[in-house]
């Protein structure tokens, strides 16, 4: 029992230290960027300096707390984060949460939809491939997924736009409708989600196939076969259960990194999700928004790592046995 507690504590300490490190890195990088959010206040960079007198500038800086030394800003920043206060957007002049939430929701819709598509394609294919490893079918599927995996996701997105929006005119070219009706949201997310799904399924397929193959080589699969069990039993009970924990952990990790693929898809489709907002806030030096989005990026990866750990704890009795 003592061992497992120590294990648990050390894991927790590790994740907390990762969080702190991420927060610090993001803060330092963003705040030290050359340029200032005030350059863009109220319009394009060229116009502002004329309107902004030195006096107003000072006032604004102190209003946003940007006149303080960096370490003081850091303390304020961390303190705010601890109170789940993400600050006030300088460019949009609205609380960051108000700006972020709708964008975050659209991205989540895109990713979730995309992941559902991607897994419903790649999961069965990877089982078939692994089960009949070396067959023509396996070879074809693997080559195909490798090819898709090699195409950059922005190229896939462009291709999709050309085929479905430009040539066939099936999908809208613009990213989003003003109406926030759920069907509209889904409709606009569909194109990006499909591209996202195709891009991710190559990767997902490949690692799932490999997990299944190493699982199929295990002695207990051979023993299960020797017992004349139905293929269904072997696959569902022995193959899946054994490989579920590594696969779900890996999927959680993929999900964590999927914001990156999203970044390309959202920008090609002009889909106003969170990664699209990242580039906007970067352009206007909107520190609070930029910091929040970068933190979201890093936190999803960290949280997904933690979830992967927890999942293998729940599913795998070997790990569970070790813990309790």
């Amino acid at each position: 029992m003592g061992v497992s507690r120590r294990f648990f504590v050390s894991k927790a300490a590790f994740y907390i230290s990762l969080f702190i490190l991420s927060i610090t890195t993001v803060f330092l990088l963003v705040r030290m960027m050359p340029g200032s959010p005030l350059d863009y206040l109220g319009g394009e960079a060229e116009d502002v300096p004329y309107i902004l007198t030195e006096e107003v500038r000072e006032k604004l800086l102190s209003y946003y707390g940007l006149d303080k030394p960096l370490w003081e800003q850091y303390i304020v920043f961390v303190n705010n984060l601890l109170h789940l206060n993400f600050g006030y957007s300088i460019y949009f002049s609205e609380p960051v949460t108000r700006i972020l939430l709708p964008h975050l929701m659209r991205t989540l819709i895109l990713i979730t939809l995309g992941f559902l598509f991607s897994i419903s394609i790649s999961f069965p294919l990877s089982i078939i491939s692994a089960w009949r490893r070396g067959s023509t079918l396996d070879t074809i599927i693997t080559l195909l997924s490798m090819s898709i995996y090699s195409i950059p996701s922005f190229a896939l997105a462009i291709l999709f736009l050309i085929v479905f929006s430009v040539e066939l005119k099936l999908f809208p070219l613009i990213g989003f409708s003003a109406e926030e009706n759920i069907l509209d949201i889904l409709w606009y997310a569909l194109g990006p989600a499909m591209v996202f799904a195709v891009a991710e399924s190559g990767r997902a397929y490949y690692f799932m196939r490999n997990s299944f193959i190493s699982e199929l080589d295990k002695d207990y699969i051979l023993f299960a076969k020797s017992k004349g069990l139905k293929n269904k039993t072997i696959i569902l009970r022995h193959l899946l259960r054994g490989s579920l924990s590594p696969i779900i952990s890996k999927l959680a990790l993929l999900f964590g990194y999927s914001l990156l693929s999203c970044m390309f898809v959202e920008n090609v489709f002009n889909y106003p999700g969170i990664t699209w907002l990242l580039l906007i806030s970067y352009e206007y030096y909107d520190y609070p928004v930029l910091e929040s989005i970068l933190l979201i990026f890093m936190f999803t990866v960290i949280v997904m790592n933690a979830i992967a750990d927890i999942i293998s704890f729940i599913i795998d009795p070997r790990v569970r046995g070790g813990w309790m």
Partner: protein
Amino acid sequence: MSHVSDTSKEVILSIRDLKVKFYTEEGEVTVISDVNLDLFKGETVALIGESGSGKSILGHTIIRLLPKNANVSGHIIYKGIDLLKIDSSLLRNIRGREIAWIPQMVGSSLNPTVKIGVQIGEVLIDHYNYRNQRAWSSAIDLLKLFEVEPAEEVAKGYPHQLSGGMKQRVLIASAIAARPNLLIADEPTKGLDTIKKTLIVNIFKKIKDLKPDLSILLITHDLKFARELADRVIVMYCGKVIEINDKNSFFELPLHPYSKLLLKSLPSKGLYPIPGKPANVANPPSGCRFHPRCPYASDICEKSSPPLIKLDLNRCVACWLYKR
């Protein structure tokens, strides 16, 4: 080809001209050559030989579990059906229900993520359409019979909670749950101490009581174990069958020079090790494969390989000394 045949007993399995090759990076390796033998209903045959002589491969071949890089030729006739020619659905019906196999790898042959009770009962569900409840109680009955106590608790647990001896018994229970007619047991006493070995001997006796007409192919290099359980003994050396004998006759008057030396190497007989290095199937000696280590070797042994000579109804040997 000479082989044992006995009209008074019913042949359950007969192997004819069996040859197993592996395609490896280094080229083709023939690990089993010209194996001919019969197994009768209800008897226990010990297959002995030093490690690397192809015993396990023979077991895998019978239950058709060889890896993809293996090539098999010859016939394995089980109840009139050639096992090497049947399709996968018939094979599935034979595995577990007609022919069962206890793998050599005790530690890794149970699925670590599936409950013990399920792993024992699942054959009954898949072969005889048992209800889950009934399969579960049959599993518990078997555990009780094999003295894996407390049976209810063990059935609910997972393999990592068991000791090596318990795992071995669970493995046996899992293999024979569907009451097969032929059992191939690959080194069931490997790595166990004397007390646990006695337990396993008792378990085999119990299995025999449960189903008197069960035939057992007992793969082992434990001569004491073979002596306690077997009716007949088959000796393999470097991929070939070199002697087939009745148990009593084998232990009193072994035929092949290798068998003689093997018996002399027993602790009770003074532990005289067999001189020379074991032959390697990848690079077998010319002629009789035992001739480099044989004290009786003559010119002919070096030049040509002796056929399996039938001495009488129950005894065969592959040695030039017996050629009149």
